């Protein structure tokens, strides 16, 4: 089936950049990938989830744990537990270097990039990256609440005598990202509650086609806008859920890929750009996270490195932790004109039948967001479309895709992937 869909697409248009026709020794490729359905796995632990996707990704690439020269292991809430080594002890203790990484919501992308860098540096021919999280029903993620002490004493870098969340603005995630969206609405016309709600409408709709999504239910605009408000304008149906899940990918150097079986080469996906940024100094970011500048910087670098224009993208998986976030990332990733994110969603462009399908997986809002897994899972999603193996949700003839994640603090990962054409 893969071979069939990998043959030259009749639907390719003139604007698309031709995929790589031969293998550059210094290029990096994805040859295997897997993810669990996102949801709740109370009967399993994070090691079970990570071991499962790792073994499946290895099998998908026709390789074994003994072929891996390096392992990148991403998890946020269990960052101090030696996750990579714990998984090795279940699937194969080969003694190779393990990098346990934690980088907020960009943790998964950082695990991928760690393996990518090892291959680029010539230290590894092949490596395994996975991201995993078991959050259960954690509830809303927010800042530190009140201190234990019953006597006011200035504490910390702001000399606060008690918790400031709720007094000096919100530290709750739905509110922080609501403000980021409202700042955009303040700067540009045509952006309001309805445009934000449309993002959630689209992603819930897309998720109905994805068997791996945590939720697969379509909601009307009325249901979305009428749902309980978390932090205006984000209602409950405009916020991602907590959940459990894992995703993995096997990367290989171009040089090594050359000697691999033809069937592996055909299904290989080229990693044309792998970028990680942190937030540069901006005045406003001293008091609230600036999720825009570092995303813009990452996107610019990624397009330059890959030689790809945003118009070339057949699909984009971007970090829609909240509906307000997705809208501003249309602009940050250059998918629309500057200031044009409202028109972009109103025109239908990011719907799966639009000009730039965004979050055809259902996105974080409906597919789910087990934090450490997210940055690998969106690479799984894009790669699966480029391989032509996405089933009911397949974007036909997809050749180039982009995966974006952002973690507050901040860290942004952008990967550009291209169909092999081999």
């Amino acid at each position, binding site marked *: 089936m893969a071979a069939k869909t990998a043959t030259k697409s009749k639907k390719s248009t003139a604007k698309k950049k031709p995929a790589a026709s031969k293998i550059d020794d210094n290029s990096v490729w994805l040859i295997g990938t897997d993810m669990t359905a996102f949801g709740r796995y109370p009967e399993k632990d994070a090691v079970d989830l990570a071991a499962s996707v790792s073994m499946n990704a290895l099998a998908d690439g026709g390789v074994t744990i003994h072929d891996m020269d390096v392992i990148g292991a991403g998890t946020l809430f269990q960052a101090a537990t030696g996750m990579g080594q714990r998984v090795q002890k279940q699937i194969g203790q080969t003694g190779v270097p393990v990098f346990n990484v934690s980088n907020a919501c960009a943790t998964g992308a950082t695990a991928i990039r760690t393996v990518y860098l090892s291959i680029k540096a010539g230290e590894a021919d092949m490596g395994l990256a996975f991201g995993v999280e078991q959050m259960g029903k954690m509830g809303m993620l927010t800042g530190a609440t009140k201190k234990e002490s019953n006597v006011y004493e200035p504490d910390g870098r702001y000399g606060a005598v008690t918790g400031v969340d709720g007094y*000096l603005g919100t530290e709750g995630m739905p509110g922080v990202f609501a403000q980021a969206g409202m700042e955009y609405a303040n700067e540009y016309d045509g952006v309001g509650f309805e445009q934000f709600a449309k993002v959630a409408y689209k992603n819930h709709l897309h998720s109905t086609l994805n068997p791996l999504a945590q939720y697969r239910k379509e909601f009307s605009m009325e249901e979305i806008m009428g749902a309980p408000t978390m932090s205006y*304008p984000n209602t409950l149906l405009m916020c991602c859920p907590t959940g459990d899940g894992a995703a993995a990918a096997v990367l290989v150097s171009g040089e090594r890929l050359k000697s691999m079986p033809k069937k592996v080469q055909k299904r290989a996906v080229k990693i044309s750009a792998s970028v990680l940024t942190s937030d540069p100094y901006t005045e406003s970011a001293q008091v609230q996270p600036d999720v825009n500048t570092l995303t813009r910087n990452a996107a610019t670098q990624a397009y330059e490195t890959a030689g790809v224009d945003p118009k070339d993208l057949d699909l984009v998986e971007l970090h829609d932790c909240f509906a307000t976030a997705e809208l501003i990332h249309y602009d940050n990733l250059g998918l629309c004109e500057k200031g044009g994110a409202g028109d972009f969603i109103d025109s239908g462009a990011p719907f799966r039948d639009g000009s730039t399908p965004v979050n055809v997986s259902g996105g974080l809002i409906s597919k789910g967001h087990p934090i450490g897994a997210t940055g690998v899972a969106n690479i799984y999603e894009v790669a699966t479309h480029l391989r032509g193996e996405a089933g009911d949700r397949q974007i036909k003839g997809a050749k180039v895709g982009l995966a974006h994640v952002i973690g507050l603090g901040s860290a942004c990962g952008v990967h550009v992937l291209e169909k092999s054409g081999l």
Partner: protein
Amino acid sequence: MAAKKAAAQKRSTKKPAKKAAAKKPAAKKSAKQVPLVDYLRLGARPYLAANECTNCGARFFDRRNACANCGKREFKKARVRNGAKLKAFTIVHRAAPGIPAPYVSAIVETDDGTTVRSNVVNCDPTPETVNLGMKLKLTTYPIGKDDEGTEAVAFGYEPV
């Protein structure tokens, strides 16, 4: 001997005011006030005091090691203007435990161009009442007392 000890005890109960206050906080009528954060300066006309980089002018509200913009290490205290406008807001309905909701969380830009995170207060927490770009000014309000009767004072911005 016993008398001496009793006298010493009597004296000691007078000295450490902390212990006495902890037992009966209501007795402390003239309650002390402390700012919620150290960059809020209380007094007749409260204001925010920023650490301003003497080289590039970048302003920070936290304790500094160096400037995040230019890397230089010298700072002076700058008095931030009290007038501001609303740059972004959210109306928080699902708040952290113990925080009354709904409330209006805001990012404001002061008249001298400093971004501040705070709440909009003395204003209905509805999308109809809170408008992007609206004019605001700094105000303060008490948020509670500790076991010693000390009152914590927060700042917010209210519509002009």
